[in-house]
C-alpha cells in the first residue's frame, strides 16, 4: 500500500477480532469454563478502508458497540489490528514511536488524566515536562489555549471543584499542550450541557482553522457532527457503510420531506393516507412524510381539502435518519 503524500491517514482493509470466552450459566458451566474454555473470535471492526487528508475534520458515526472506539484506538496505536494496515503521517501507530506520539493526542470524554485533587495547572506542567517543553514554552502555550477555551481562574482551582464543562475544557487544554497535528476525540462532549457542548465545538472548529490540525471525532450528539464535520464515516456492526459529506448523506437518506399541518378541526387518519406516510397524528396535528417530487401537489391539495391553520415543511432531523439507517443497515 503506497501512502500518497496528500493523505495523512491511510486505513486499508483494517479488521480487529476479539477473542472472547463463552461461559454457560450455573455451576456446571463455571467448571466447564475453568477446565475447557471455549473461545470464539468476535469481530469488532471488519475490513474498513478510507483515507484522510491533512486538515480534515471527520466524524465517526455509529451506534454503541459499532466499532468506532476500536477504530480510533487502532489509529492512535493503543490497539493492534488483527489484519490490515494503518498509517498515520508515515508512522505505524502500534509502534508508538516518540516522534509519532508527539504528533497526536487522544481525548476521551469519559476518562480523565488531570490529577483530581490539584488544580489543572499542576497537571499541565507535568504534561509539559513529559513532552519536553520548557517552562517558558509551556506558559506561552497554556495562555494561548486558555484564552481560546475561555479558561481563567479555573486552572488554579482543584479539579474536583470544577464543573464537568470546565473540567472537559481543562482536559482538552492538557491534551493540546504539545501542539499535536492529529486530534483523536472520543465522545469529547459526553455529559456536557448544551452550552458547554457548543463551546467545545466552537473551540475545536477554531483550533482546526488556526492550526490546520486534523480532527477525528466520535460523538453521540448529532449536533457535534453537523456543526463540525463536513465529512462523516458511518460504521455499523464493525463495517463501514457510508463515507462522504454530511449533506449528501442526508439527501440520500431522506428523499422525502416532513410536512406538519395544524388543522382547524380534528380529522381521521384515513383521510391523510393518500397524501403521504403518516408519521404522527394527534388530534389536530398531523405530520406526513412526502416525497420531494410530489411535494408541491400534496401541499396545494392539502390546502384545498382541509381547513388549515398552519403548515410547515422541513427535513426530518438527521439523527432520526441515522437511527433509521442503522436499523435498515444500508444507504439508499
Amino acid at each position, binding site marked *: 500500500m503506497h501512502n500518497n503524500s496528500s493523505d495523512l491517514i491511510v486505513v486499508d482493509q483494517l479488521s480487529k477480532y476479539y477473542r472472547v470466552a463463552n461461559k454457560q450459566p450455573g455451576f456446571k458451566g463455571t467448571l466447564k469454563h475453568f477446565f475447557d474454555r471455549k473461545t470464539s473470535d468476535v469481530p469488532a471492526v471488519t475490513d474498513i478502508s478510507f483515507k484522510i487528508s491533512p486538515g480534515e475534520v471527520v466524524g465517526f458515526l455509529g451506534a454503541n458497540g459499532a466499532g468506532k472506539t476500536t477504530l480510533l484506538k487502532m489509529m492512535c496505536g493503543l490497539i493492534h489490528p488483527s489484519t490490515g494496515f494503518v498509517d498515520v503521517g508515515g508512522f505505524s501507530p502500534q509502534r508508538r514511536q516518540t516522534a509519532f506520539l508527539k504528533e497526536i493526542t487522544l481525548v476521551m470524554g469519559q476518562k480523565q488524566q488531570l490529577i483530581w485533587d490539584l488544580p489543572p495547572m499542576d497537571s499541565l506542567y507535568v504534561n509539559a515536562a*513529559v513532552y519536553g517543553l520548557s517552562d517558558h514554552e509551556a506558559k506561552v502555550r497554556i495562555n494561548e489555549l486558555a484564552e481560546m477555551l475561555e479558561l481563567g481562574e479555573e486552572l488554579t482551582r482543584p479539579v474536583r471543584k470544577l464543573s464537568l464543562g470546565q473540567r472537559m475544557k481543562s482536559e482538552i487544554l492538557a491534551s493540546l499542550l504539545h501542539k499535536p497535528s492529529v486530534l483523536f476525540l472520543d465522545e469529547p462532549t459526553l455529559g456536557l450541557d448544551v452550552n458547554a457542548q457548543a463551546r467545545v465545538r466552537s473551540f475545536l472548529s477554531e483550533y482546526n482553522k488556526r492550526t490546520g490540525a486534523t480532527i477525528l471525532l466520535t460523538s453521540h450528539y448529532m449536533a457535534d457532527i453537523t456543526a463540525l464535520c463536513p465529512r462523516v464515516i458511518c460504521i455499523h456492526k464493525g463495517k463501514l457503510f457510508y463515507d462522504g459529506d454530511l449533506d449528501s448523506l442526508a439527501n440520500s437518506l431522506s428523499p422525502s420531506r416532513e410536512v406538519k399541518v395544524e388543522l382547524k378541526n380534528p380529522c381521521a387518519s384515513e383521510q391523510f393516507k393518500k397524501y403521504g406516510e403518516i408519521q404522527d397524528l394527534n388530534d389536530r396535528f398531523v405530520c406526513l412524510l412526502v416525497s420531494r417530487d410530489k411535494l408541491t401537489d400534496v401541499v396545494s391539495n392539502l390546502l384545498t381539502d382541509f381547513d388549515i391553520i398552519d403548515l410547515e415543511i422541513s427535513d426530518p432531523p438527521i439523527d432520526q435518519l441515522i437511527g433509521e439507517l442503522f436499523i435498515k443497515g444500508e444507504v439508499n
Partner: protein
Amino acid sequence: MHRYFKTIRLFWSTAFASQLEYQLNFLIELIAMVGTLLGSVFILSLFFTGGRQLGDWTWESALVIQGVYTFLDGLTNALLRPNLTEIVNYVREGTLDYVLLKPIDSQFWLSVKKFSFAGLPEIILGLSIVFWAAIQSGSTFSSYSLFVFIISLLIGFIILYSVWFLIAASSIWFVKTWNATEVLRALLAAGRYPISAYPVILRFIFTLVLPVAFLTTFPAEAILGELKFNILFFGLILSSLFFIFSRLFWKFALKHYTSASS
C-alpha cells in the same frame, strides 16, 4: 535524561501537593507514621532485652539488619506501594491509555508517578539505626565498605522493586491483584532477621529462590565489612536479571493489553 529528572521532580512535587490538599488526612497520616515508627522501635527494643544470639550474629549486628529492613520498608511505603498498587486502577479505569500515548517510558511513569512523604522518616530512622548499630558492633567504616553498602542496598531495592512490579503488571490480565502486595510485605518481613537465623533449607530458598538475603542480610554484612566480593558480584548480576525480566514482562503484558482492550 534531563526530561526524566524534571518529570520526576514535578511528579513528586504534585504528589506532595496532593497529600497536603487534605489537611486532616495528612495529619492522620503523620500520626500513623509516628505509630509505625514506635512499632519499629518497640520490636527493636525486644532485641535488646533478648540478649541472645541470632544465628552467628551478635545482636548489635542483628540490629544493623533491622535498620536495613526499616530503611527498605520506608522506601516501600514511600515509593513502591503508592505507585505499584495504582497500576490496577490505571487498568481498571482505562487511564493506562493516556500513559501509553505519552512520549515517555510507561514503566518509568507507573513506577515513579507518586511519592508518599510519610515514608521518609522511616527511611531516615532506618539509616540512623544502621550506622549506630554498626558503630556499636565495632565496625570501622572505610569509603570502600560504604560504597559496597550503597551498591548492595541498591541491589536489594532493585530486586524488591522488580518482583513487586512483576506482580503489579500481572493486573493487566487479572485486573484485581488481590493481596499480592501482602505477600511481598511478608517477603520483606522475612528479611528482618539474619538469614543464618533460619534453618538451612529456608536459608537456601531465601538466597536463591526468593532472594530475601539480598534485601537485608547482605547490605548489613557490607556495612560490617563482612560481605564477600563474589556475593556482591552475584547480586549485581541477579538484580540486573530481575530488572531486565521486569521490563520484558511489562512489554509482554502491554502487548496483551493493546490487543485485548477496548
